[in-house]
């Protein structure tokens, strides 16, 4: 009974068009109720293989749909719910038409990357390496994509990140959701690098560096970061302030020195 309903909902979700995605959450919550009736929302010893397969597919649909709806909290929830299913032996899951495991995991990695949670990113990656082996991961385009992005981000090849977020390089449309976020991330990274690296910068060059469309956008961006744009060049006022701050630092460090020396004296006294 509940099983039939579940299958029905799955086919409905499958045929759901992009314009009525907002229907999906309702369908999903009905499906989850059905799963609970089948006792299959969390896999146990007794759950039947076909139910497990149904549950896994449903949760994957849920994850993908919540990404399309840009509901990252829901996505994280679905991802966590899927974990016990992914750790089951493959023969228990029965024959599934296709597994979206790589896709969902890749999306989760990308999500962690876009919020800057590098520790979480590496923790998940470490788990993947251990559980599914190297070949599996290197074959999986969906997982390689965030891995490549992370590498480029860490070494600072921002132009590679920019290239990766362009339409044809993105492995599937769900991944495109993060492109906007990532571009913003690298833009602010580049901005903070530029502040320190260049004494000043012509606006036309800044446009290319920051991947902005027009010079007007550059000036707007410059203002939002508090840069000064005059005579066709951008000047970074923060540099000078920091130079001043550094000088003050040396002066104010005398306090620290006194404190440390007093500390040594006190310690020495307790020892002797």
């Amino acid at each position, binding site marked *: 009974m509940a099983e039939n309903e579940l299958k029905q909902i799955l086919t409905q979700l499958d045929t759901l068009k992009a314009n009525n995605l907002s229907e999906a959450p309702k369908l999903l919550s009905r499906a989850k109720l059905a799963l609970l009736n089948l006792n299959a929302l969390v896999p146990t010893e007794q759950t039947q293989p076909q139910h497990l397969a149904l549950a896994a597919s449903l949760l994957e649909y849920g994850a993908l749909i919540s990404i399309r709806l840009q509901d990252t909290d829901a996505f994280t929830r679905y991802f966590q719910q899927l974990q016990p299913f992914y750790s089951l032996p493959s023969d228990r899951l029965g024959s599934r038409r296709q597994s979206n495991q790589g896709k969902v995991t890749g999306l989760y990695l990308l999500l962690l990357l876009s919020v800057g949670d590098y520790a979480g990113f590496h*923790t998940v990656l*470490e788990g993947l390496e251990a559980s599914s082996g190297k070949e599996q991961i290197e074959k999986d385009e969906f997982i390689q994509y965030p891995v490549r992005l992370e590498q480029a981000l860490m070494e600072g090849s921002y132009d590679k990140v920019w290239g990766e977020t362009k339409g044809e390089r993105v492995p599937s449309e769900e991944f495109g959701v993060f492109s906007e976020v990532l571009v913003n991330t690298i833009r602010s990274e580049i901005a903070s690098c530029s502040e320190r*690296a260049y004494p000043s910068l012509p606006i036309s060059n800044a446009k290319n560096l920051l991947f902005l469309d027009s010079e007007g956008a550059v000036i707007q961006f410059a203002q939002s970061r508090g840069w000064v744009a005059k005579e066709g060049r951008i000047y970074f006022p923060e540099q000078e302030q920091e130079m001043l701050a550094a000088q003050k630092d040396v002066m104010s460090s005398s306090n620290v020195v006194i404190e440390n020396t007093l500390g040594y004296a006190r310690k020495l006294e307790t020892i002797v």
Partner: protein
Amino acid sequence: MADKMDVDAVNGEREEETVGPASDLPPERIIINNFDLIRQAVDAFDSRFILRALRSISTLRKSDKFAEAIVQGVRTAFPKPSMGARKVLEDVLPDNVTAMQNGTSAPSAEDKKKDASAEEQQLPEIWAYLGILVQVYLYDTQQFQEGADFSTNFVEKIRSWNRRTLDQIGAKAYFYYALFHETLDPKPPSKQSPVIEVRPKLLAALRSAVLRKDNDTQAAVTVLLLRNYISTADITQADLLVAQTQFPTAATNNQVCRYLYYLGRIRAIQLAYTEAHDHLESATRKSPTTGPAIGFYSQSMKLQIVVELLMGDIPERSVFRQPALEAALYPYFKLVQAVRVGDLQAFLRCVTNNEGQFRKDGTYTLILRLRQNVIKTGVRMLSLSYSRISLRDICTRLHISSEESAEYITAKAIRDGVIEATLDHQNGHMVTNPQRDAYSTTEPSEAFHARIEALLGLRDECVMAMRYPMNKHRQELSEAAKARERERELAKEIVEGEGDDGDGDEGGFEGM
């Protein structure tokens, strides 16, 4: 991932050096002598005797008559074949040994001890000690499934007793319990491994150990759980365990070493390199560097080298010169060389050549993260050698794919404080700022402070680690009581004297 032998080895370290005079006795004698030690321990409530009994295991297991010796020990302790405890132990020992012993030699030993043991009503400690021997025997003969089944019942029994003199034995029992389950198929990285099933048991053991203030079991089980989580790469759980529990300060050095190693591993994966480095440094310093423990030492050394590289430091050359580690660390030596000069090609070559080794050590994913460090070092080398260099040259020298990438990479290096330079976008080159004098900054005083802090910390730890004899304070108490007694008598005498003399001598009291 640390090999099982490594952890085992740390355990073996002390055993090896203190075998002493017992080693030339026949194994069954050692076992029976140990019964006396254990009895003494229970009577005096002093765990050191138990530790001494446990130490001889490494000698025992090397003997080729180990099984026979255990059977004899069991017979001695439990003379009646009908005793339940004896049955449990003998069930897992090989049939031919038990049968043979039934025939000839056993009765004599039995007879001798019969009178003594009848009144003994065997101590649980002795039974548990024999249980450990059985575990060791099963492990050495690779009967992992039997060992796992036996251990499951065994630790359950130990937990039900709740005796403080059983703590050390219990800790060891859990160690073998976890070890057996680790060796069962499918092996750990798989998510269906039996190690996952033992987690609830270990957690329950941890809970009871904490409630009973059983430091030994608590330390051992915490370490086992961490190892368990890390073996299936459940880093988040391991991290939560560390956050929710307190590692007993009174734990033995070996357990502290392991704990620090696993902690270092967790932190390294979470990118907290400074913290990881601290933990690993203490682990390597505390760990014994000779004997069977060399496995653990080299394992933690490898991890420490990688973490040091990730922090941007270059490990000292002397690390690689240690004779015992030279061969084991060779791939890492090559790696350090590549990182040190910032040669991306050599680095990638080294990683692909030694991939198998790195994977085995569980450092592979960490090493992959080094890529950016190599590039950074490369940029720094260039900036040190040229006062002005074009971006195109940077590209060719560091094998970067495009000039734009090179520009972003150098900009990031400047922002991260790796180099002191500025970029000239129009002409496309990098200009290095002249070096500032390090002694005009606060850096020397900071380094000085760090060293003093470390030394003071060391001293504090030493003071805390000092051991005092158990009953010293009782002795003092009784002395104090005696002194009070004397005082009272004196006071009485004085009062009596006062009656005689009429006027008291106030000074007398002050002298007291």
